[in-house]
């Protein structure tokens, strides 16, 4: 038993492996080159996964009550011994952190493997893998840290990697801008994290999780609420919740494996992790309600936006925001296990969907506009199969994973008598079903709209539009580029930072070539994730003896009361009701899109929604609004501050001090005449004067 605890103290090896890979590849990657660099990164990730499994086994070897014990923490070295503030660099292995470590390394390995195929031929191939490894290391530091500051180190690390990877193809202006947007938006959340840490330190004198957990009720409820809300702000930034959600859809400018790994499966769940770690603050106060409402509103609004996105990746991005909203909803309801369960299942099916969409884009000559897809199942049967499985999973069709995970959250809202949130959850689930069905049918079923005008059923798409700009990277002259060149597409206008495929115009140009299936190295991870998305539900089946995840995580969430359905029938009824509504959503979208699109620029749902369509399609003009606000009054305020406050008040104060002393010195500056002997005389006279004073006055 003590042996397994000693093993748990070796949890630092999990982040150390990819960290070594990142340093190694940054130093020697260029010399190693393709594909060995990719294999090194993948091998290190799989080793980290194996070590996480060892950690899991050692954890299970401990008796239940010892699994989240303080003794599992291990101090590696003293990081900041600064007076009262003493922070150690250390790891803490408990069920919560090990669950996340398994998720990051497991899904991470698959996505590394996929990237070997996806990044084939990129000129910065090895640097991509160095960044991916660095990201994995940061994420693992984040989850395995023994105190808030170590977590913050990883938190900033993943933010940096997110920035580096979103703008990986920085030659494209929109990618560079999207990276900056993500970075700056995340900083807003980080302010919350920092302030929360200051408050925690001021209240407890330490940042260790082990000390903070039991003490949440010992501080005043005002302080605890402030800490909880500041942490919520931090989590909103990282997990793209309203009002800080706007960076995630733009983050899709990065390579698709990045979207899958960072912006769907792992990094964006860091906010959920943080709130789970700090759950005593939520339990001690009523701030959980705020978390739940933020999550619920985000889930609903992002779901409504996703239904009209023409870009396959942006639709998935809004879907991710919406699903993250569910996780926040669960956290706010104190149903932490349900949130973690959702994180796991979401990583499986959203990872699969993103990697699948990557295969679609890869096979479709870098065009990612769904309006010119259709009928792809014939050309890429494996990808189509995997994505259909993941679609059914996310839509909540039993017995796939999404059914169990999402319905558990929605049922929890009902069981905790939060009927408003329950209704929001159900409606959002219906939207989930609609946008996912639309995505699948536009991509894989219906008419083939990728043929050039005059050559297929989608021929009418270009009629009436004189300018048909290229909507995605790749071919800007209408000729498909068969050999994928993932470096910067030259066709993009450098001055236009707008996303790859925005809602509404421009009308996409069909590229005229049928898509092709992705190579085996890309198909395999998609298939594995599809399998996991299908069977992931068994982690936590709603039967008393089979709630394995509940039981495993229980030590980390000790003292949080679990709310269970009164009877099996009640639980079953709740889940069936949610499923029925989701099924209506699927059916509705199926009716609309089963034949594809008659005209590529006419979306039937768009026309059905009428005036609402542009509002939803443009995401409630939130981005425009922020741009207007920051660009208009924001810039005016900054300019006023620059002109008045900075130039007059701050510079005035600084210059005023200077002028004051200049005036003061005017009389005595004559003395400084540069004559050394006169200075020496001054010193001599001064010494004599002091001596006289000592002898005559003090010695008296």
């Amino acid at each position, binding site marked *: 038993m003590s042996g397994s605890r000693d093993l748990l103290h070796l949890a630092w090896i999990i982040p150390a492996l990819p960290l070594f890979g990142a340093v190694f590849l940054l130093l020697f990657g260029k010399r190693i080159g393709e594909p060995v660099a990719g294999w090194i990164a993948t091998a290190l990730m799989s080793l980290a996964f194996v070590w996480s499994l060892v950690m899991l086994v050692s954890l299970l070897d401990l008796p239940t009550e010892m699994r989240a014990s303080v003794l599992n923490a291990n101090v590696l070295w003293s990081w900041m011994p600064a007076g009262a503030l003493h922070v150690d660099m250390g790891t803490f292995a408990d069920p919560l952190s090990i669950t996340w470590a398994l998720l990051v390394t497991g899904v991470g390995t698959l996505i590394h493997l996929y990237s070997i195929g996806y990044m084939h031929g990129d000129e910065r191939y090895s640097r991509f893998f160095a960044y991916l490894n660095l990201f994995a290391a940061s994420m693992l530091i984040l989850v395995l840290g023994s105190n808030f500051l170590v977590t913050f180190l990883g938190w900033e690390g993943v933010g940096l990697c997110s920035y580096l990877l979103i703008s990986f193809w920085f030659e494209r202006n929109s990618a560079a801008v999207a990276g900056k947007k993500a970075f700056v938006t995340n900083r807003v959340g980080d302010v919350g994290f920092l302030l929360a840490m200051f408050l925690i330190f001021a209240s407890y004198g330490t940042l260790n999780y082990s000390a903070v957990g039991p003490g949440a009720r010992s501080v005043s409820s005002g302080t605890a609420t402030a800490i909880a809300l500041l942490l919520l702000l931090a989590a909103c930034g990282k997990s793209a919740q309203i009002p800080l959600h706007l960076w995630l859809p733009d983050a899709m400018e990065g390579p698709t494996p990045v979207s899958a790994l960072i912006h769907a499966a792992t990094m964006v769940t860091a906010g959920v992790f943080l709130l789970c770690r700090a759950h005593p603050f939520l339990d001690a106060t009523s701030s959980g309600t705020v978390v739940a409402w933020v999550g619920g509103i985000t889930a609903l609004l992002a779901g409504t936006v996703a239904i009209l996105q023409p870009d396959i990746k942006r639709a998935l991005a809004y879907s991710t925001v919406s699903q993250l909203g569910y996780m926040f909803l669960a956290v706010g309801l104190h149903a932490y296990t349900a949130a973690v369960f959702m994180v796991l299942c979401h990583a499986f099916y959203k990872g699969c969907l993103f990697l699948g969409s990557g295969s679609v884009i890869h096979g479709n000559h870098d065009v990612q506009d769904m309006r010119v897809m259709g009928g792809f199942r014939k050309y890429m049967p494996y990808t189509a199969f995997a994505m259909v499985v993941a679609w059914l999973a996310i839509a909540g069709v039993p017995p796939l994973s999404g059914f169990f995970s999402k319905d558990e959250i929605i049922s929890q809202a009902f069981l905790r008598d939060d009927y408003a949130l329950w209704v929001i959850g159900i409606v959002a689930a219906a939207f989930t079903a609609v946008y996912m069905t639309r995505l699948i049918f536009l991509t894989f079923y219906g008419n083939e709209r990728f043929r050039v005008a005059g050559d297929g059923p989608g021929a009418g798409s270009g009629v009436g539009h004189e300018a048909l700009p290229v909507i995605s990277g790749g071919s800007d002259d209408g000729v498909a580029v068969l050999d994928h060149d993932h470096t910067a597409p030259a066709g993009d206008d450098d001055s236009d930072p707008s996303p790859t495929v925005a809602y509404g115009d421009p009308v996409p140009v069909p590229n005229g070539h049928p898509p092709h299936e992705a190579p085996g190295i890309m198909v395999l991870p998609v298939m594995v994730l599809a399998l996991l998305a299908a069977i992931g539900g068994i982690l936590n089946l709603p039967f008393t003896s089979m709630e394995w995840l509940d039981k495993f995580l229980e030590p980390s969430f000790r003292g949080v009361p679990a709310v269970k359905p009164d009877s099996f029938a009640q639980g079953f009824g709740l889940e069936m009701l949610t499923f029925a509504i989701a099924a209506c959503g699927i059916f509705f979208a199926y009716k609309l899109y089963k034949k594809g699109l008659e005209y590529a620029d006419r979306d039937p749902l768009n026309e059905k929604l009428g005036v609402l369509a542009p509002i939803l399609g443009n995401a409630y003009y939130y981005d425009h609004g922020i741009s207007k606000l920051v660009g208009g009054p924001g810039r005016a305020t900054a300019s006023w501050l620059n002109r008045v406050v900075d130039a007059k008040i701050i510079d005035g104060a600084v210059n005023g001090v200077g002028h004051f002393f200049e005036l003061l010195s005017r009389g005595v*500056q*004559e003395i*400084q*005449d*540069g*004559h*050394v*002997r006169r200075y*020496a*005389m001054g010193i*001599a006279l001064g010494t004599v004067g002091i001596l006289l004073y000592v002898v005559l006055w003090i010695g008296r």
Partner: protein
Amino acid sequence: MPVLATTIDAGWYLVLAALVFTIGAAGLLTRRNVLVMFMCVELMLNAVNLTFVTFARELNDIRGQVIVFFILAVAAAEVAVGLAIIVAIFRRRRGATADDLDLLKDPTA
């Protein structure tokens, strides 16, 4: 009692030190040649050294001698730097009159 056996009273040493110090100080204030001023500073330093050694012996306290070692070390360093500066000045100006070297004064004054 033979006259030869008498020891010199500590006061004389102090008087000698005071004289040397005064010569050094007066030279520093009156001479214009930088090299001579520099030698005057050395005189003053050694006068202080003599005082320290005298008191160390008189009071039977070894710390006085220890301080002398420090002063010697610092003085050696000072000589190295100071002479280098003086040589540099000689090279540029063909002379080393302290009163000409007033570049650091306030130009507006």
